[in-house]
C-alpha cells in the first residue's frame, strides 16, 4: 500500500465511523498486529465499531478501496487467525461487548461478538443458567472469536463445541449488507457454515446462544497416575464404559509442577500424570458416578483419588488447569502448543509417539489436554536462543500432526487453522475436498476480502495445492 493509499483509507474510515473509532498511530497499530500465536504486518488502520451499522460502513469502505478486513476478538487465538497477513483493516469488537437480550424461559441470549465468554455465564448465573463452551481463555476471549474458531474447552466433551450452542447469527456480508441467519429458519444451515469459518465468510455482529441449566451438584476430582499413558488408558476406559463425566482432563508432571508453583491449587506434585474429572448433575447421581469413575481409574493404576468438596476448591482446580498457559513461562523460555485430535482409543499410543518424537528432536514436551475428546495439546518446550531449536520444533510439530492423522485423527480440535496450519491442511483433505470448501468461500467472499490468507493453503487456487514442508511463519512467538 502506498502512503497516499493509506491516507485515503484512513480518511474514508474516519468519515464513515468517526475519528474516535479509528486508530492509526504506529503504537496503536502494533498492539493489533499479533495474536496468541504470531505477530504479522502492521494493519493500515484499526477500527473499533460501536454498532452493526459501523461494521457495514467499514466493509463498504474496504470494498471501495480493495482493502482486506480482519475481524478480531481478544487476540487470544493460537493459530494466527487474527493477524492481518495482508495488512489492511483490523476490526476489533472491544466496543461491541454487551448482552443484547436474555430470554431465561427459553434459555437463549443474544450477544454482541465482543462479549467475553466468562462474562456471559456470570451474567446469567443468577437465573440458574450457564454457557457451555469454556475455552481456557474464557476470561479474556470473546464470544465472537469463540464463534469464529468453533471453540471448545474442557466442557466440550459433555456439551459440544460452539456450533452446538450457536442458534443464529447476524453478520455483515461482503457487500456491507446485514444478514440474519438462524437455525429456526427454513433453508440451508448458514449458521452452521459460519461457525468455525474463522472470519473468512462474513463479519459476525450478533450471536444467538443457547444457555443451559446449572446442574444441581458438581464435583471435581483429581487422580494421580504413575505415567501419562495409564492416565490416558483410564480415560479411554471411562469413555468406553459409557460413563458421562462433564470433563476429563490430563496434565503431565511437567505441567502440574509449573501450574502448582503458579497457582497452588493442590494438585499432587509427585505424580507423573494427573487426571481431572468433573461430574455434574443430581446430587445422588453425582456421588454414584464419582464412585464408578474412581473405580475405573483405580483399576487403570490411579495412585490416589481426591475430590474437591467446596466450590472454592473446585474453582481453584479449574483456574489452574485453564491458566496452565500462564504458568508455562516457568518451565521454558519458549513453547509451541499443538491441537491435534485422535480417536479416544488411540490416546495412549498417540501420547507415547509424541514423547518419542520430542525426544528424537531433542526437545522437552509437556502435555495438558482434553483427554475425553482425544484432543491433545502437547507443548514443545525450547529456547529459541539455542541454534537449531526452532527448526527442531517445526519438525517435531509436523511429525506430531502427521502421527495424529495416521491414527485417524486430525490437525485441529478447537484452535483453528488460521495462518499456522494452513499449509498442513492438504495432509487431511484432498484437492477436491478443499475445492469444495472453496466453493463456500466463493459464495460468501468472492474477493477474499475477509481475513485473507487463512485456512486455505498458501498459493491455493481452486484447491490445486500440495502439502508444504514443515515451516513456522516469521513472527511466531517461539
Amino acid at each position, binding site marked *: 500500500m502506498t502512503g497516499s493509499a493509506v491516507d485515503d483509507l484512513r480518511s474514508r474510515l474516519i468519515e464513515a465511523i468517526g475519528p474516535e473509532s479509528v486508530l492509526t498511530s504506529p503504537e496503536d497499530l502494533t498492539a493489533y498486529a499479533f495474536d496468541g500465536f504470531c505477530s504479522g504486518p502492521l494493519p493500515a488502520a484499526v477500527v473499533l465499531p460501536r454498532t452493526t451499522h459501523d461494521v457495514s460502513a467499514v466493509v463498504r469502505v474496504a470494498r471501495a478501496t480493495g482493502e482486506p478486513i480482519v475481524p478480531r476478538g481478544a487476540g487470544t487465538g493460537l493459530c494466527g487467525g487474527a493477524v492481518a497477513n495482508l495488512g489492511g483493516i483490523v476490526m476489533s469488537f472491544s466496543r461491541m461487548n454487551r448482552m443484547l437480550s436474555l430470554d431465561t424461559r*427459553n434459555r437463549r441470549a443474544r450477544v454482541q461478538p465482543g462479549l467475553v465468554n466468562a462474562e456471559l455465564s456470570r451474567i446469567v448465573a443468577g437465573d440458574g443458567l450457564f454457557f457451555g463452551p469454556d475455552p481456557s481463555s474464557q476470561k479474556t476471549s470473546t464470544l465472537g472469536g469463540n464463534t469464529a474458531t468453533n471453540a471448545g474447552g474442557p466442557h466440550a466433551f459433555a456439551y459440544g463445541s460452539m456450533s452446538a450452542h450457536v442458534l443464529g447469527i447476524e453478520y455483515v456480508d461482503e457487500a456491507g449488507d446485514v444478514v440474519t441467519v438462524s437455525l429456526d429458519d*427454513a433453508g440451508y444451515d448458514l449458521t452452521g457454515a459460519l461457525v468455525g469459518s474463522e472470519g473468512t465468510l462474513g463479519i459476525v455482529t450478533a450471536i444467538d446462544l443457547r444457555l443451559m441449566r446449572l446442574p444441581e451438584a458438581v464435583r471435581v476430582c483429581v487422580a494421580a497416575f504413575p505415567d501419562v499413558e495409564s492416565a490416558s488408558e483410564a480415560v479411554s476406559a471411562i469413555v468406553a464404559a*459409557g460413563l458421562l463425566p462433564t470433563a476429563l482432563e490430563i496434565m503431565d508432571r511437567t505441567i502440574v509442577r509449573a501450574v502448582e508453583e503458579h497457582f497452588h491449587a493442590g494438585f499432587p506434585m509427585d505424580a507423573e500424570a494427573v487426571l481431572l474429572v468433573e461430574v455434574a448433575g443430581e446430587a445422588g447421581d453425582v456421588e*454414584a458416578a464419582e464412585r464408578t469413575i474412581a473405580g475405573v481409574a483405580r483399576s487403570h493404576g490411579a495412585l490416589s483419588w481426591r475430590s474437591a468438596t467446596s466450590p472454592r476448591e473446585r474453582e481453584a482446580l479449574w483456574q489452574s488447569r485453564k491458566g496452565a498457559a500462564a504458568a508455562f513461562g516457568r518451565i521454558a523460555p519458549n513453547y509451541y502448543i499443538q491441537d491435534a485430535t485422535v480417536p479416544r482409543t488411540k490416546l495412549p499410543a498417540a501420547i507415547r509417539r509424541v514423547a518419542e518424537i520430542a525426544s528424537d528432536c531433542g526437545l522437552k514436551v509437556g502435555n495438558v489436554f482434553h483427554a475425553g*475428546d482425544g484432543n491433545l495439546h502437547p507443548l514443545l518446550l525450547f529456547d529459541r536462543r539455542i541454534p537449531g531449536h526452532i527448526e527442531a520444533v517445526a519438525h517435531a510439530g509436523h511429525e506430531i500432526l502427521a502421527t495424529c492423522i495416521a491414527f485417524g485423527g486430525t490437525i485441529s480440535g478447537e484452535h483453528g487453522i488460521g495462518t499456522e496450519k494452513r499449509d498442513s491442511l492438504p495432509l487431511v483433505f484432498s484437492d477436491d475436498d478443499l475445492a469444495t470448501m472453496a466453493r463456500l468461500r466463493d459464495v*460468501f467472499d468472492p474477493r477474499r476480502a475477509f481475513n485473507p490468507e487463512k*485456512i486455505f493453503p498458501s498459493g491455493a487456487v481452486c484447491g490445486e495445492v500440495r502439502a508444504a514442508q514443515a515451516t513456522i511463519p516469521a513472527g511466531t512467538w517461539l
Partner: protein
Amino acid sequence: MAVEAAREFPGFGLAGRMPERVFVPQNIDELAAFLRECDDAGRAAVVFGGNTLQSLGNAPARYDVAIDMRALAAVVEYEPRDFTISVEAGMTVAALERELAERGQFVPLDAPRPSLATVGGTLASGWLGPRRARYGRSRDYVIGSTAVLPDGTVAKSGGMVVKNVTGYDVTKLYVGSLGTLGTIAKANFKTLPVPEVRRIAIAALPERTSARAVANISALGEEPAAALVIRGFANEIDGRDSIEGRMLLLFEGTARAVERATREVRSALGAAGVPETRLVDREVPSTFAHVIDAYVAPLGARSTTYCSYGLPADLAARRDLLAARAQQNELILETIEDLCNGDLVARVSTNMTSEFVVHIGDFEAYRRDALPRTRVLAAPGAIRELLEGWSDVPSSLDTMRALKARFDPRGTLSPGRFVGGI
C-alpha cells in the same frame, strides 16, 4: 411413456411425476459417475432413501431420473470404544440403531418409520425430532461426511474424531438441504451410551386440566427427554379413541433420576387435576416410535400434516389459530405439541376423500399467511402439488441461491424442490 414408467417404478413418483429411469449405485464411484453423466446431459435427478419424507420437498421443476441409495448400506467403520461410527448413507435408520444398540449406544435421530428411512435421507431432510432439546440436533452428531456433488466431485469434510475444526464444516450445508447441493454418500456420527432407564408416562388430559398441566410440566426439576401433548392420532398411538388430549412424557437417565422424575410428574399432574398417570417401562422404544411415526402418518388421500416451529411459550396460541381456522374450513384437526422444543404438528383431514381437496386450499392459504415457519411434513402426492413446502422464505435466500448455483450450477439435483424454488 410416463404411465409405463409409473408401472415400472412404483415408489419413485413425486407430485404425480415419474422418472424415466431409476439408478441404483453399488458404490460411491458409480454414484459419482452417474451424477456427472446426468449433469453433462442436463438430466435432473432426485435422490431417494426410504421415500418416507419426500413430502417435505416441493414438486421438482424437472425430474428425469431417480437415484435409489439403498444399496449403499454398509457400516464403513465402527469402533464402539471411540463412540463413533461411519456408515453409508443408504443404510436404514433401524439398521444403524440395531448396530449401535448391540454395543449399548445410540444416535438421537428420532426419524419416523426408521425401518424404511435411510440415514442419508434423514440427514438431508433436516429432520427435527422431539428429543433435540435434551440431546441436540442430528447435525450436532454428524462429525464428518463424504458427499458427491453434481459434477461428480467426491468431497469429504470433518472426520472420525468428536472434536474437529479442521477446514469448513461443509457437512452442515448438506444436512437439511433436501439433497439440492450434493448427495450424502457416507456419514460419520458420534454416538451416546444408551441411558440406564427409559420410561414413558402417559396421562389423559381433560380440557380443564390442560393449561395447568402444561405449565407444571414445563417447570419440572428433572426435565423430560421429550414432552408431548397429543390431541387425536388415536389409532397411530395406542388405539385408544380419545377426544381429550393426552400428555406423553419420556424420561431417560439413571434409575435414580427417572424415579425422581416419576415422583415429580405424578405430583405436578396431580396438582393440575389430572386423574391418572400410566407408566410404560417395557415397550418404551416401540411406544415412542409410534408417536414419531404419527408425525408423518397420512389418512389416505384426505389429510395433510404441517409442522409449525416456534417457541414453547406460544404453542397454545398457534394451536388456537389453527383450530379456529380448521373449524371454519370444516377440517378435522389433530395436533402434537412438543413442550420442550415448541414444535406444533398439525394434521388436518376430512372424513371423505372427495371433501378434502375442497377445503384444504383455503386452510393452506391461511397457514402461509398467519403462521410463519410452518412446513409441510406429509401429504399425499395429488394434494402435495397444491401446497407450498414452507410458509415463508428466509431473509438470506439470495445467499442460499448463490450456494445452489455454486454447488449445482446446472440445476441437476432436485431442482425446484427446496425453499424459494431452489
